[in-house]
């Protein structure tokens, strides 16, 4: 990662790899519950007459996200559907307006960049979407699709910092003087800030002629005594240069340049993702957000596309933010990985560190949930219970606490591990109105005593929770049997769940990585002792 390949026209000295390209701090995106000017009005139906109230509910899709992406790396962003990862991608690129927070791209805060400036900055940051069906306009041919971003930015343009010179192969006895127009770097790739045009000078019956190797350049000859003066300049229009570049890009992403005139529907899903790649690459961006680019593809095609993306990253020095719900894909493509849950990044570390030494119980749960393609890998797994809570009213403290198998016991009670496990399981069961709780309410034929005993057998078989906690549990069981699980739920939440440190404090810890990388961020109170 020390050399910096640059195949495009941009030959400016870029900051080295490893420098942050994108810095995100405290980024938030809330969505209102409805659009339009009558949207916020809701009707309260409790009374006899519905009372209109003006109130907006906010869906906290992204809620205080912080990370940076270094030049040349791939940051993997993984999370389940609805965790806000796609919204994060769109907010990063300011395709949706962030509610709060800062995104610094190449040192410029995108929040301050408005209108035309932002539009120009989009040249350097591109996005590839998930759906190969809908990401290409069905009514446009492939060529114009790939050209569109270039057209929008009036590319190609000459880079003023690139100087031009010519390499002349002289087959005549004349001495050759050569002048090269400054803008030939549009047609030939620059290396180390110099664009070199190859020119051949030959003598024929009609006289001395010069030809540039690139079709896009023209060379004119003026004879003056025993010297000839060769002038190299752009002969092709911008449109022609763009078309040439599209054909070159099609080849680079593994398609046939002859496909220029085809429509998207004539391609398979994998090929369409390649077209998307070519479109993103056309403006020579630094940064590409890949929003689940391979999830709609078959396994064998996914492998092809992932490999191509890796090759292109090396060739063009690209930086990726690679979003996926698939941890296997992330493990293959990413250098560092961020795990997202309910609008927050809960863990962020180097790939090996995160996969081999996960510190957040959610990451753990995700990892154990993926079925490995090997029937002998039969780890007993304890899948997470319940559903992701609503992002409108997320849990206090750690957002994962309502499903976390490692929820920390409140310090008020002196629980043994078994006791706390039982209490936690019971609390969750009541909260979710699990089938056993449901059954205890539903059945009214048997006496309350039997039901109480049965419930106790189900949840507290081997443990005897005593003291203050025991009283709460007794009360809750009684309430459940009375057919009032709301009261039981409130009791248990108040006495146990809400008193845990997980509910009271927002976790935010940086740990010492064990397997590489510089930082291991794991927002879980289990590590409150180990953090720096």
């Amino acid at each position, binding site marked *: 990662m020390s050399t910096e390949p640059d195949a495009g026209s941009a030959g400016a000295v870029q900051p080295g790899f490893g420098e942050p390209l994108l810095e995100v701090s405290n980024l938030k995106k809330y969505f209102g519950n409805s659009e339009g000017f009558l949207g916020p009005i809701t009707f309260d139906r409790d009374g006899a007459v519905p009372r209109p109230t003006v109130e907006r509910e906010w869906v906290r899709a992204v809620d205080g996200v912080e990370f940076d992406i270094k030049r040349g790396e791939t940051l993997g962003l993984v999370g389940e559907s609805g965790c806000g990862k796609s919204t994060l991608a769109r907010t990063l690129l300011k395709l949706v307006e962030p509610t709060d927070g800062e995104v610094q791209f190449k040192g410029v805060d995108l929040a301050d960049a408005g209108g035309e400036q932002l539009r120009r900055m989009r*040249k350097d*940051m591109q996005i590839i979407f998930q*759906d190969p069906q*809908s990401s290409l306009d*069905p*009514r*446009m041919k492939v060529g114009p699709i790939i050209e569109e971003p270039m057209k929008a*930015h009036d590319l190609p343009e000459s880079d003023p910092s690139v100087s031009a010179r010519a390499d002349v192969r002289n087959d005549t006895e004349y001495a050759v003087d050569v002048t090269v127009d400054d803008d030939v770097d549009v047609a030939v790739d620059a290396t180390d800030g110099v664009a070199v045009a190859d020119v051949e000078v030959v003598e024929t019956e009609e006289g001395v002629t010069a030809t540039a190797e690139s079709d896009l350049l023209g060379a004119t000859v003026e004879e003056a005594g025993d010297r000839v003066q060769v002038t190299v300049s752009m002969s092709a229009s911008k449109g022609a240069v763009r078309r040439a570049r599209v054909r070159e890009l099609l080849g680079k992403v593994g398609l046939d340049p002859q496909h220029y005139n085809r429509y998207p529907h004539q391609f398979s899903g994998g090929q369409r993702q390649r077209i998307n790649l070519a*479109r*993103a690459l056309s403006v020579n961006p630094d940064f590409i957000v890949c929003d689940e680019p391979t999830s709609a593809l078959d396994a064998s095609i996914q492998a092809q596309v992932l490999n191509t993306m890796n090759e292109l990253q090396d060739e063009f020095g690209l930086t990726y933010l690679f979003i996926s719900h698939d941890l296997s894909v992330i493990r293959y493509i990413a250098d560092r990985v961020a795990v997202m849950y309910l609008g927050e990044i809960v863990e962020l570390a180097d790939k090996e560190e995160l996969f081999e030494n996960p510190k957040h119980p959610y990451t753990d749960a995700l990892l154990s949930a993926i079925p490995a393609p090997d029937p002998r890998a039969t780890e007993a797994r304890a899948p997470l219970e319940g559903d992701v809570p609503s992002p409108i009213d997320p849990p206090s403290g750690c957002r994962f606490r309502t499903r976390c198998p490692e929820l920390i016991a409140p310090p008020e009670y002196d629980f043994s591990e078994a006791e706390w496990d039982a209490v936690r399981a019971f609390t969750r069961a009541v909260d979710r109105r699990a089938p056993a709780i449901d059954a205890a309410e539903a059945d009214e034929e048997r006496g309350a005593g039997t039901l109480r005993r049965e419930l106790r057998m189900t949840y507290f078989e081997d443990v005897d929770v005593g003291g203050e906690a025991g009283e709460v549990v007794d009360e809750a069981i009684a309430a459940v049997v009375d057919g009032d699980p709301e009261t039981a739920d409130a009791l248990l939440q108040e006495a146990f769940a809400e008193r845990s440190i997980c509910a009271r404090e927002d976790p935010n810890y940086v740990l010492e990585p064990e397997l590489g990388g510089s930082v291991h961020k794991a927002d879980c109170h289990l590590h409150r002792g180990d953090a720096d």
Partner: protein
Amino acid sequence: MSGETPHDRRDVDGRADVEIDAEDDGGLEAEEVEARVGLSYTLVQLRRDPTALAGLAIISVSTAVAIVASIDALLLDYWLTQTFWYHPELGPHADTNLPPYGVSNQYYDASRSTLAHPLGTDFRGRDVAVRLFYGTRIAITVGFTSTVIGLVGGTLTGAVAGYYGGWIDDVLMRGAEILYAIPFLILVIVIVSVLDPQRQNALLVAMVGVGIASMPTFARLIRSRVFSVREEEYVEAAKAAGVKDRWIILRHVIPNSFAPVLVQATLQIGLAILIIAGLSFLGFGAQPPQASWGQMLNKARPLLIPNPWFSIFPGLCILFTVVGFNLLGDGLRDAADPRIQN
């Protein structure tokens, strides 16, 4: 176009293409028409639909007639009709109220009828067939022009409202709904009365009026499509690539929302012809001595019993033309809707 039989399939295709061009919103290049993969597919489907083909045949005939009449009126200074017929406004006023050839009733006997006036003459002795001939020109022009006005205005308004959403949508669409809330004919009459109280350019103003009044229909139609198209990833991709909104709307959003609008436009042409005929009948459209169908109907009103042909022939013209456009519109709708395909 006029020389070929409308049942020729090549002709059918040719006609359809011309129509897309004619109704294009003007902002798109020629290659764009070619790029409408979905549309050309729709047109192929259309070839299998006999009712739509019948509609196309009727429209082809009336459009051909309208074009010939326009050439005659504008370029040849009525040379055609004067040579082969005679000028409608300069007709021999003596031969008034001739019945159609070979027709008689209790007021007129067939002996007066002549092949020179196959459909008879009116109360001023003008040839009814020639008046219908020029009436076709007015009807077709009026239908197409007002629809194009409504189509362009409505499409742009609806696309902008749908694309941006929020308060822009609120303002534009509430405005459209206000127009929508007024009965169509009354709205057009109001527009005509306000814009042209002297009735100097009554027909032109009526066309514009019908166009404006039909804009909300198009706007609402395209807006609902735009709502789904703007969520398509290629629109987002264009935005992310830094493409300007104007370009995105013209290049991506409108072409991909256009199919239902095209169907509506076809139906709207028929409706516009009917409305303008109605306006002319009420005295708000074509003014005498212009030969419009509605105008002819109006003049025929007091003579309904003795001279029924005064009203029957323009009535039939209106009927056939409007039915033609409706048949084509229905066919287009079926062809564009994959659920109806078998």
